[in-house]
Structure formats: structure tokens, C-alpha cells
């Protein structure tokens, strides 16, 4: 479903060149729950951002089904981000002046026409699923960190995507909230979502079916 071949990524900081991903080859099948483990600076986030189209690789091949990222236009990538993929970050990244419900509906409201009733219903359903029933109209700053992260997860579900990318989704949460999030992910995977999660935390990685370990821009296992 999602595959890379000899993927390379460099960062340029002035004259200093950092080779972050080195000929990385990877294959992820539909319905998998994959955890990416590795030391800080090993290139986990970079890989995730490239797979989720947010960042561009420098060379190699990267495909989602038969869509080659290097070949398609911006419009196609926007469509992938909106309909096929969802990204959850370490810092929930909600829009501060929109309510929980509106933040969840964000991917549905990029047109001039108002969001459909069924979308609103489904957004509420998603919020309920992550345990936020009754908190639809709260602003992000009226929610706890764990709750905010769960709003971000609900937002990731609204478009019924195929793949959910999560970059240290529990990195900012305490053990209890981490468990809640991990269990939500497990449940989502059972419902058929493909999940790709970057984490530091071995106990989080244990929820996944497959663990990929990264070191210096390469996969080591």
C-alpha cells in the first residue's frame, strides 16, 4: 500500500548538509499497525513527514498504491492529505479559536458550501469515540492536554482516511493519557485503519503489530 525505495533526504543549513534518510526502503501493507522506534535524531519524523506528503524527499521512489509522489501534481497531494491520510502530531495543533467540534470538522470545511449535516453527526461520533462526548463546544484552551490530543485524533478520523500517521502522539502526555490514546489506536486498527506511529516509548510500540527500528537514517531490523 505504502512503499519506498532508496529514499534519500538531505537538510541544508547554510553550507552544512545533513543526510537524514539514507537509501531507505520500506513496505507497509493495508491494515497494519506499525511503530517506528529509534533514537532522537535518527530521522523518524522526517520519514513520517515524507510518507504523509508533508515533506519532499530528494531522491528515490515513494508510492501510495500506484500514486508516485514525485510524479503527481500539488492538487493530487492535497487530495491525499484530505481524503486518504491523516496526521497527528506530538503537540495536538488545534486551531485555538475554533471549538473542538469545529477543529474536527476542519478537513470538511475547505469549500464555500457549509459542512453537511451528516459530517457534523459523524464529527460528534468521532469525538464520542475518543471519550469527549459533551465537550463539543469547548475551545482548545478549555480542554486538558490529553483531551486536546484526542480532539486531534477525532479530526484524523473525520474523513475516514486509509492511513493515520502519528508522530509521538503520546510524547506530551502522562502515562494514563498515553494508555488511553494507545488503546484508541489499537481499536482504530481493529476497525481497519492502517496506522503508522513514531514513538520513543517501548511500551507504546508494544501495541503495534510490527516495530521498525531506525538508526542514522536507516532501518536496522
Amino acid at each position, binding site marked *: 500500500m505504502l512503499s519506498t525505495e532508496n529514499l534519500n533526504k538531505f537538510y541544508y543549513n547554510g553550507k552544512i548538509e545533513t543526510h537524514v534518510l539514507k537509501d531507505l526502503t520500506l513496505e507497509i501493507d493495508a491494515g497494519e499497525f506499525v511503530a517506528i522506534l529509534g533514537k532522537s535524531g535518527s530521522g523518524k519524523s522526517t520519514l513520517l513527514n515524507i510518507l504523509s506528503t508533508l515533506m519532499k524527499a530528494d531522491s528515490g521512489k515513494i508510492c501510495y498504491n500506484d500514486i508516485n509522489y514525485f510524479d503527481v501534481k*500539488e492538487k493530487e497531494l492535497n487530495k491525499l492529505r484530505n481524503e486518504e491520510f491523516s496526521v497527528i502530531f506530538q503537540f495536538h495543533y488545534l486551531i485555538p479559536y475554533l471549538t473542538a467540534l469545529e477543529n474536527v470538522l476542519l478537513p470538511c470545511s475547505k469549500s464555500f458550501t457549509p*459542512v453537511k449535516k451528516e459530517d457534523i453527526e459523524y464529527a460528534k461520533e468521532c469525538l464520542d469515540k475518543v471519550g469527549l462526548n459533551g465537550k463539543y463546544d469547548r475551545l482548545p484552551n478549555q480542554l486538558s492536554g490529553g483531551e486536546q490530543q484526542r480532539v486531534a485524533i477525532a479530526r484524523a478520523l473525520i474523513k475516514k482516511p486509509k492511513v493515520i500517521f502519528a508522530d509521538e502522539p503520546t510524547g506530551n502526555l502522562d502515562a494514563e493519557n498515553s494508555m488511553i490514546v494507545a488503546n484508541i489506536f489499537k481499536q482504530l486498527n481493529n476497525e481497519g485503519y492502517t496506522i503508522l506511529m513514531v514513538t520513543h516509548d517501548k511500551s507504546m510500540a508494544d501495541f503495534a503489530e510490527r516495530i521498525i527500528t531506525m538508526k542514522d537514517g536507516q532501518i536496522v531490523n
Partner: protein
Amino acid sequence: MNIFTIPFKNLKVKFFKTAILIFVFAIGITSSVALNKVSSTVSEALEEKMNKFGANILVYPKTDEINISYGGVQLGNLSYEVKYLPETDVVEKIRNIEFNKNISAVAPKLVKAAKLEDKLVGVVGIVPQEEIKIKSYWNISGKMIERGDEVIIGSNIAKKLNKNMGDKIQLYGSNFTISGVIESTGSEEDNLIFANLHQLQNLTGETNKINFVEVSALCAGCPIEDIVNQIKVAIPDSEINAVQKLVKQRMSAVHFVEKLAAILSGVIIFIACFMLAIFMLSSVTERKKEIGILRAVGYSKSNIFIIFITEALLIGIMSGLVGYTSGYFLSFKILDILHIEAGKITFSFLESVLVVIAVGLIAIISSSLPAAKAAKITPSEALIAL
């Protein structure tokens, strides 16, 4: 909820910032609206005032003789043969030129000498209702002549002959009543007697004859040269003396006020636009994270552009509404301070709508660069900001 929810809510939540921006932008619009309203009223008032200085085109019979006058001393054209113009024909022709809408008064005149109590006096035949239009600087104690047997006299004559309103005088063997005395104007008019033109023509046997016509044609932006030319074509055997210098001065005074207002408004609006652009630019930098989130959930470049442009448009529309309304009221206040009648200023719904639309457009234009900058931010760039 749709794409406009984002700019709406953002402005709402940053109420204080938005209010200040609208306030500043509206000040620019207010001063522009007020300036333009005041300048157009002032130039109209100015034009009206200047029209009161009298006629600005003189139409004489053509003469081959050289007219010699210097320092106010008329040496005459030395042959004493006086030439005339046919009254009805000339007046009609002037009234029918192409630009006749710009002609406010056509005042034909016949000048004659007469004996009054053994003194030689000058009598000018006038058409009262035309004359009064160009002689608005006349202060008549009494009233303008109405009937054929009435005259008004200059202040010097009144003094020298010891005549006053209501007195009777005899001219050309006919009785006249003095209906009024013109207060001193400091001109030749102080020494003249003004009578009804047709009465004077009958009494002196000069039926339908006139010496010259004074024409008042003035309005801001009047094509005075063209008017003169058209009269020249209509009455070939005439000589036309346009008081060009006076005309040009009047025009330039009127246009100066308008130009000044336009330039000032331009500068003010430019500064306001600049401020809006700066505000939007800093807003783009500040909201990089937000742009990143939106891009990550699939918003396109044009979606981002629309969000920022909509914010600017909203600010523009609100500034336009506030600015037009307060500019409208401010113009009354300014005119009041300048002691100018504000009667001509009216609230026009259409004008207010046009102003609001124009300000909206200006806001869009001035924020299109920052909005384009926002749209250009790539998801990975925004991620670094995350």
C-alpha cells in the same frame, strides 16, 4: 461552518486587534470621504462666489478702427461713428450655441447720453432679469426696475443731483421714477443711470439696437475657450472679449481645491493600505502554525489565499462602512467651521455602497501580497514552525 468560518472567527477572537485596524483604516476613509465632500462643496461655493464678480465674456460689434484706451482713459475709436448689434438676433444666437447649458446670463446693453437737469448723464438700457444675474454684487437700496418707467441710479449721481428713491426725473422728455439707488461699487456704474432697455430703445429711436452684450458663462470645468469660439462662429461680425485671465484664475482656484483633496486622500489611503498590508504580513508569520495545520489536513494554496483575502475584505468592508458614515458627518462639521452652507451634501445610499465596495477592493489588493505569501508556505516550512 465553511471556509469563511476561519477568517470570521479569527477576526472575532482578535477583537481588539481587529478593532484597532478597522479604526485606523476607517480614519483614512473618513478623511478621504470628508475631504472630497468638503472640496466639492467648497468648489461649488467658490464658483458661486466668483460668478458674483460678474460677466466674463463681452460681445462687441466688429470695428476696423483701432480702439485706443490707456489707463482707463478712453481715446475712443476716433471716428465718432458708433456701431450697433441687432439685439434679438444676437441674444438668440448666443442662447443657441452648442454649450448653451453653460451660459447663465445674456445681458444686452445700449449706452446713451441724456440731459438731466442741464447735466449730461449716461443712461444704460438693460434687461433687468438678466442684469441682476451678473450684478449680484449690486446692493440696491430700493428695488430693481420692474416697469418701463422706472430707473435705478448710481450712488454718485444720486449724491450730485440730490436724488433719492421715489423721486421723479425726466429723460428724453419722459417721466421716470427712481426705484432704487445702487450703493457705491467703486466702478463706472456709480455714475450711470440704468433704465429698461426696450424703453430706452424706443425713446432714442434705436429700436432693437445694442452696443454690447455681457455674457456670463462659468462653471467648474466649463470649456470657456470653446464657448468663445462658438459665439464667434454664431456672430461673425462681432468682437469677443473673454476675460481670460480672470476665468483662468477662477478655474485654477476651483481645481486647486479639488486637486489638493484628491492628492491628500490618495496619500492617506495609501498609508492605510500600507498599514493593512503590514498587519496582514505579520499575521501570516504569526499564523504559520495554523497554515501548517490547514495544509496538513488538505487545504490547497488557493484555500489559504482565500482565508487571508477574506479577512482583509472583511476589514475593508467594515472600515468602509464606518469610514463613509463618519466622513459624511465629519464633512458637515468641517463646513460648519468654514462657514460654508452644507446644503448640497446628501447621504447617497448608492455612493455609500460604492465606497464600501471600493474600500473592500483596495483592502483585497493591498493584502494580496501577504495572502500570496501565506499560500506559498509549504507544509514542510510550516512544520518547522510547528
